[in-house]
C-alpha cells in the first residue's frame, strides 16, 4: 500500500495500521487484506460481486472495518455487501470509501450494503466518504443501504461526506419490526459544483418501532443538495425527521419531507430549516476578534461536528 492509499484509509476509517478485529480492505476493485475472528466471518460471494459479513449471535464489543479505497483513475467499482448481525449482538461496523483521482477520467464507487439485524441486536454503523486528487476526473459515489431490523433491534447509522465527492446519490431503505429503533445522522458538505442527493425511506412496520433521521448539511459555492425523507408509519410507532442546512454563496438546497401515517397511533414529525449563517452569529464571533472568514469557518465546523 502506498502513501496515497494509506492517507485515504486514514481519512475514511481513522486507520493508521491494520485494525483490531475483523476487517476487509478493498483496493481498486480487489481484495487487499482480510481478517476474520471467532465470531465474525467474512466470505466472498460465489459470483464475486461482494462479500457476506456474518456475525454470530451474542457477539459483543467487536468491530468490523470494511474500507474501500480507489486510487486509479477511470475505475468503476460496484460491490454488494451483506451484513448478517445475529440476535443479541452489540457491534460496530466501520465502512468508508476514499477516492484519490489525479487523472482525467471519472472514478466511481457504488456500494450496496444490506443489513439484517436479528432480535435485540445493536449495531453502530459508521460510514465516511472522502475524495481527493488534483485531476479533472470526477469522484462519484452512489451508496445504497438497505436495513432490516428484527424485533427490538437498534441501529445507529452515522454517515459523513465532507470533502471531494463531486456527485453522490445516497439511497437508504429501512424496515423496522416491533420495538426496533433506527437513528440516522447524516453530515454533508458540498462545494464547487458538487451535487449530493439523499433519499431515505423508513417503513415503521412493527408496533412500538421508532426512527429518527437527522441531516445536517452545508452547501457552498455553486453546489446543489437534495434531501428526501419518507417515513411511513404503518402501526403504533414514532418517527422524526429533521433537515438542517446552511446555504452559502450561490448554492441551492432542497428538502422534501414525506410523512405518511397509515395508523391512528403513528406519531410522525418533520422539521426542516434552510438558511444562511445568521448575521448575528458572525457579528458575535467578530466581536471576539475573529475575521468574518474565520467566524464563518468556526460556525460551519461547529455545525458539522
Amino acid at each position, binding site marked *: 500500500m502506498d502513501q496515497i492509499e494509506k492517507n485515504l484509509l486514514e481519512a475514511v476509517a481513522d486507520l493508521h495500521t491494520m485494525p483490531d478485529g475483523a476487517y476487509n480492505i478493498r483496493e481498486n476493485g480487489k481484495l487487499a487484506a482480510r481478517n476474520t475472528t471467532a465470531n465474525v466471518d467474512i466470505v466472498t460471494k460465489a459470483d464475486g460481486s461482494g462479500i457476506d459479513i456474518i456475525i454470530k449471535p451474542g457477539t459483543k464489543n467487536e468491530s468490523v472495518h470494511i474500507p474501500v479505497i480507489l486510487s486509479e483513475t477511470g475505475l468503476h467499482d460496484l460491490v454488494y455487501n451483506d451484513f448478517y448481525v445475529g440476535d443479541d449482538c452489540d457491534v460496530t461496523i466501520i465502512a468508508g470509501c476514499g477516492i484519490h483521482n489525479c487523472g482525467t477520467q471519472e472514478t466511481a464507487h457504488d456500494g450496496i450494503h444490506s443489513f439484517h439485524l436479528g432480535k435485540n441486536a445493536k449495531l453502530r454503523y459508521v460510514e465516511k466518504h472522502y475524495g481527493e486528487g488534483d485531476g479533472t476526473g470526477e469522484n462519484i459515489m452512489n451508496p445504497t443501504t438497505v436495513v432490516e431490523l428484527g424485533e427490538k433491534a437498534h441501529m445507529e447509522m452515522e454517515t459523513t461526506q465532507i470533502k471531494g465527492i463531486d456527485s453522490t446519490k445516497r439511497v437508504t431503505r429501512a424496515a423496522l419490526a416491533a420495538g426496533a429503533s433506527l437513528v440516522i445522522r447524516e453530515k454533508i458538505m458540498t462545494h464547487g459544483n458538487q451535487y449530493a442527493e439523499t433519499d431515505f425511506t423508513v417503513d415503521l412496520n412493527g408496533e412500538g418501532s421508532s426512527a429518527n433521521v437527522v441531516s*445536517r448539511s452545508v452547501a457552498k459555492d455553486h453546489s446543489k443538495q437534495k434531501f428526501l425523507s419518507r417515513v411511513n408509519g404503518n402501526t403504533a410507532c414514532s418517527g422524526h425527521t429533521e433537515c*438542517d442546512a446552511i446555504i452559502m454563496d450561490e448554492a441551492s438546497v432542497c428538502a422534501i419531507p414525506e410523512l405518511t401515517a397509515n395508523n391512528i397511533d403513528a406519531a410522525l414529525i418533520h422539521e426542516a430549516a434552510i438558511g444562511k449563517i*445568521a448575521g*448575528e*452569529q458572525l*457579528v*458575535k*464571533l*467578530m*466581536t*471576539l*476578534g*475573529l*475575521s*468574518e472568514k474565520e467566524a464563518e469557518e*468556526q*460556525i460551519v*465546523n*461547529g*455545525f*458539522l*461536528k
Partner: protein
Amino acid sequence: MLELQNVSFSVTTEKGEKKDIVKNVSLKIDERFVAITGPNGGGKSSLAKLISGVYQPTGGRILFDGTDITDMPITERARLGISFAFQQPVRFKGLTVRDLITLAAGKKIDMTTACGYLSEVGLCARDYIDRELNASLSGGELKRIEIAMILARGTKLSVFDEPEAGIDLWSFNNLINVFRNMYEKVQGSILIISHQERILNIADRIIVIADGEVREDGTREKVLPNVMNGNEACSVLTSKL
C-alpha cells in the same frame, strides 16, 4: 480612553423618512465603571453598537486610546481591546461553551481557567463546558455564558448591553457580585447599559440618554437621585398611578 466626538446615527424608516437615533453625542470616558441609563428606545443600545462597530455612525468620530476607530470594522476594534456583550446572546448549533470561551480567550485554555470564568458567573463548569449553545440553554444561562466570554477576553473596555435583561431575580443578585468582582479584578473599564438601580449603585459615573441625546451626565451621587425620582414619566401615566 474612549471618546465620542459629535457622534450621530440615523436610519431610514420603511416610509422613507430619516430617523435620528443618536444625535450629536459627545462623551469622554476614562472612569472604571460607567453606567448608561435612560428610557427604552432612547438610543442606548445603538450607542453600544456604534462603539463596538456593529453600527457605523452617520456623523462624528470615535476615538479609542487616541486612535480614530470610526471606520474600523468590528474585528479590528475587538483586537484593539473592545468587548461587547449582547443584550440578546446568540445561539450556535454545534459550538460548545468550551469552544466559545476558547475563542474569546484567543488561545487554548486549560479546564481550570475555563472553570474559573464560568464559576465567576455562577455556572458549574463540569455541567456546562461541553454543552452546545443551542436552544437547550435558557436565556439566563446564555446571558451568563455571554458575560463569561467577556471575562475570558479581559480587554481594556467591556461594553454590556442590559446584562440584567432576561435574567431571573435570583440570578440577578449574583450578577451584581459578578460586576463588583470585575470592577476589582479587571484592569480595564466597564461601560454598562442598565435600568437596574443596583447596577447604577456601583457605577462611578452615570450618563442618562434619552431621545438620542445626553440628558444628564455626572457622578453617581449627582445623577442617581434624579433618575430615581422618575422625572421621565409623562403626565398621562403619572395621573393614572
